[in-house]
């Protein structure tokens, strides 16, 4: 159908927390929408379809030309998300003009004049590709005029990117399976061989055609995941039946290479091949591997922050590749050639992996070393001793576990380190992104240090934007709005009164931070209204957490 139908789906998805309900909404979409819009909508939801032609500034200019600047600013401040502000404030064309003559009762009904019909999704996609840049504003402005507020929001999010409705490719494929009665594994198999709007896929699912043939196309195989280890689980472990490895703090990837091509997949099956050309170049083999993508310099793993420099980049420059060299630490071998090793026990796969690495020795790749241990107490000591920022904790894998998709209890465990904690003072707040953008949800916090004149001053040490509950978020947002002392663009400076308990996984020296220290994954654990700001922690105390630079055991094992 059209953008309004898609907008209605988006709106329901955005507000629907339950997986089952999301599936029902998707099934309804597949069942009721015509081709090619249902496929275009599916691709947009799973972000397989990304536009770059229309920049957010284009939308900004369009709305600025149509609204009063003061009212736009007040509205933006209230709503938070700019796209949503535009969608809501956009003057509704065809609505009876304000103050027009009319009897008292006529005024009761809002009368809409029928305009040009709203565009079809496929029409939007096609027009965005074909329209010269100079004509885009008029085209998009014209579309926005035909839509209501939810249609406008859908269109703006669609063309500027960032629908973020919580529909993963996996969820969409489960919905396709439920709707069509086909096995989800069969759909997964062909998925990467079909492209939006997936006409051959829908023909097959509706029984009108043969199953599409993915040929030699590289296919994503769902990853095996680990459960967090609780104390009770730990006690039940029998050490000889388990293998331990470090849990590296990078991004989990799957490498697929063969005659049909080379692909690098993220944990969720996203194709991230384009972002890491040097890895792809090194994949001169026929196999499917599981590993951790890391920035590695001279054999030492760099903190996650370095890897972040390589993520979400539109272009990969030579400088980026030089300054943030990536490699893959290999965990597992799923296929060698066309042989599926996944049913084999872990020990057998590990032997095959070690053998394969020795034989093929692909550049930029090494083995994730195994950690020997005789008792759980010893293993616990090893875990607590590892403070390198590049290590999140330990992975425990049962020696006889086959490689199975998803998170099966009892086969693999992740045993994270205990987080560290400080009591810090809230200094600045900024509005968040996505669903949190109408709230002050990003918090810069600081610790005390001597100011050189016999007193103390606060120095910012980090920024946290998670860990709190919705109630705490609402409370913090209100507190910040009522205790603002200064504004710099989207940032508010607040009275230095509020103490937050912040937990984090590691602290490391940093020259890029004023405090000289950077925190890994800081999040808010508690709001300490009971504690006066003067009793918050000192910078010294945080410095004591900074890990030793030496690599822990096993890290440099190549």
């Amino acid at each position, binding site marked *: 159908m059209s953008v309004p139908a898609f907008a*209605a789906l988006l*709106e*329901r998805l*955005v*507000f*629907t*927390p*339950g997986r089952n*309900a999301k599936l*029902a*909404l998707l099934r*309804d979409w597949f069942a009721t929408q015509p081709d090619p819009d249902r496929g275009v909508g599916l691709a947009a939801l799973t972000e397989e379809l990304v536009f770059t032609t229309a920049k957010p500034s284009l939308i900004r200019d369009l709305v600025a030309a149509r*609204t*009063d600047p*003061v*009212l*736009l600013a*007040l*509205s933006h401040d*209230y*709503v*938070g*998300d700019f796209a*949503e*502000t535009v969608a*809501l*404030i956009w003057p*509704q064309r065809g*609505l009876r003009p*304000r*103050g027009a003559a009319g009897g*008292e*009762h006529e*005024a*009761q*009904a*809002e009368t809409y004049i029928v305009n040009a019909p709203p565009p079809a999704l496929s029409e939007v996609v096609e027009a965005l590709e074909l329209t010269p840049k100079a004509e885009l504003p008029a085209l998009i402005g014209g579309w926005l005029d035909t839509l*209501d*507020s939810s249609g406008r*929001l859908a269109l703006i999010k669609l063309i500027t990117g960032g629908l973020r409705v919580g529909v993963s490719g996996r969820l969409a494929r489960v919905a396709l399976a439920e709707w069509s009665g086909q096995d989800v594994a069969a759909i997964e198999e062909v998925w990467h061989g079909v492209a939006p709007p997936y006409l051959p896929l829908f023909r097959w699912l509706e029984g009108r055609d043969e199953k599409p043939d993915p040929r030699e196309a590289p296919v994503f195989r769902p990853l095996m995941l680990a459960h967090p280890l609780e104390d009770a689980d730990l006690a039940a472990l029998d050490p000889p039946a388990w293998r331990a490895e470090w849990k590296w703090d990078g991004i989990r990837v799957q490498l697929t290479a063969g005659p049909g091509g080379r692909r690098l997949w993220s944990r969720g099956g996203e194709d991230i091949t384009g972002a890491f050309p040097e890895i792809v170049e090194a994949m001169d083999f026929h196999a499917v591997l599981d590993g951790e993508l890391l920035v590695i310099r001279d054999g030492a793993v760099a903190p996650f922050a370095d890897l972040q420099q390589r993520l979400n980049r539109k272009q990969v420059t030579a400088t980026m590749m030089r300054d943030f060299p990536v490699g893959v630490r290999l965990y597992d071998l799923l296929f060698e050639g066309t042989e599926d090793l996944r049913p084999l026990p872990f020990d057998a796969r590990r032997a095959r992996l070690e053998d394969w690495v020795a034989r093929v020795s692909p550049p930029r790749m090494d083995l994730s070393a195994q950690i020997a241990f005789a008792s759980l107490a010893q293993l616990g000591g090893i875990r607590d001793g590892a403070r390198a920022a590049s290590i999140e904790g330990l992975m425990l894998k049962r020696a006889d576990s086959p490689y199975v998709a998803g998170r099966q209890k009892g086969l693999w465990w992740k045993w994270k380190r205990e987080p560290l904690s400080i009591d810090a003072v809230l200094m600045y707040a900024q509005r968040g992104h996505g*669903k*949190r*953008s*109408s*709230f002050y949800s990003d918090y810069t916090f600081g610790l005390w240090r001597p100011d050189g004149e016999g007193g103390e001053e606060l120095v910012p040490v980090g920024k946290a934007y998670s860990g709190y509950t*919705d*109630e705490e*978020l*609402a*409370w913090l947002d*209100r*507190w910040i*709005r*009522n*205790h603002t002392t200064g504004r710099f663009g989207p940032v508010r400076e607040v009275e230095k009164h509020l103490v937050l308990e912040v937990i984090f996984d590691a602290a490391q020296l940093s020259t890029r931070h004023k405090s000289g220290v950077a925190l890994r994954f800081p999040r808010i654990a508690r709001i300490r*209204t009971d504690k006066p700001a003067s009793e918050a922690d000192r910078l010294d105390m945080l410095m004591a957490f900074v890990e030793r630079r030496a690599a822990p055991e096993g890290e440099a094992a190549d």
Partner: protein
Amino acid sequence: MTPQGLYCEPGGFFIDPVRPVDRAVITHGHADHARPGHQAVLATVETLAVMRARMGEGGAGAVQQPIGPGEVLEQGGVAIRLVPAGHVLGSAQVVLDWQGSRAVVSGDYKRQRDPTCAPFQPVPCDVFVTEATFALPVFRHPPPEGEVAKLLKSLALFPDRTHVVGCYALGKCQRLIRLLREAGWDRPIHLHGALAALCKLYESLGVALGPLEPATVANKAALRGAIVLAPPSAVQDRWARRLTEPVVGVASGWMRVRQRAKLRGVELPMVISDHADWDDLNRTVDEVGAPEVWVTHGRDDALVHALGQRGIRGRALHLVGLGEEDEGGTEAPPATGEGDAAAVRGVAAGTDVAAVSRGEGL
């Protein structure tokens, strides 16, 4: 007298005062406008009935004086009339004529169609006193029929789930029921206990609501695929969670802003409001033609700015205590004891209203 709100000096009476006074004119029955303990209360027949239902015979005023449509009452040289405000059943604007000039205190009002109450009538005046609950241009309430259609579509999509919709007990609840009836929903509508009394009162005042049944969580199997209406506070607590896979909706103008709705855990936001939206606030000011507009509560900054651009003098009164029962209150922060917005407003209100009553009392 400042914290007590709008005061008419020559007439010696307050409009919607927040503390007990001798003589009060009440615009409508919402708790932030109609408070208990006044000596003499002047209001529409319906508003007095609502007040009695909510606070008992004694709380609704020692002397209750109903004033009918078209009736004019004289008080200290001030002619008082009540004209429909279209907000909830019985809601009225207070029209005051004194020495050739006219002020209209509109209370809460809306311009959208509402099958449960008389429509708003614009009255030309010199001073127009208006609310500004939704006075930002992002607030434009869509036709409510479309919002009700969303609920019915969801019921078709999830026929086994109980659809529980949060709505205010006075006005919104009954309007929603009537809209559902107009859309063809003739099955019983189930009510949380807190909504039953006012529905009964509406029916006794001539607003037919169709079959209504109590929503007893104990019998949740009977509520599969049913519509349950409950106060907004109840839809978010354990009461609603005990229903069968509930789809939680809320009918309120605040639902227009997606992220705010989402934070409240709402799965089915319905933008249905009993307050005027941005376009209607501005249209109404233009229609009454007042050169001076006083803004009682809400987003006065945006409205005063927009009025100024059209040469209308707007002033913010920052009245304390308004916007607390109905939709005006949905944004109240959780009780924190800190940074209490109402207290901050209270300080400002003291000065502003004092200035108003000193200089330009009616």
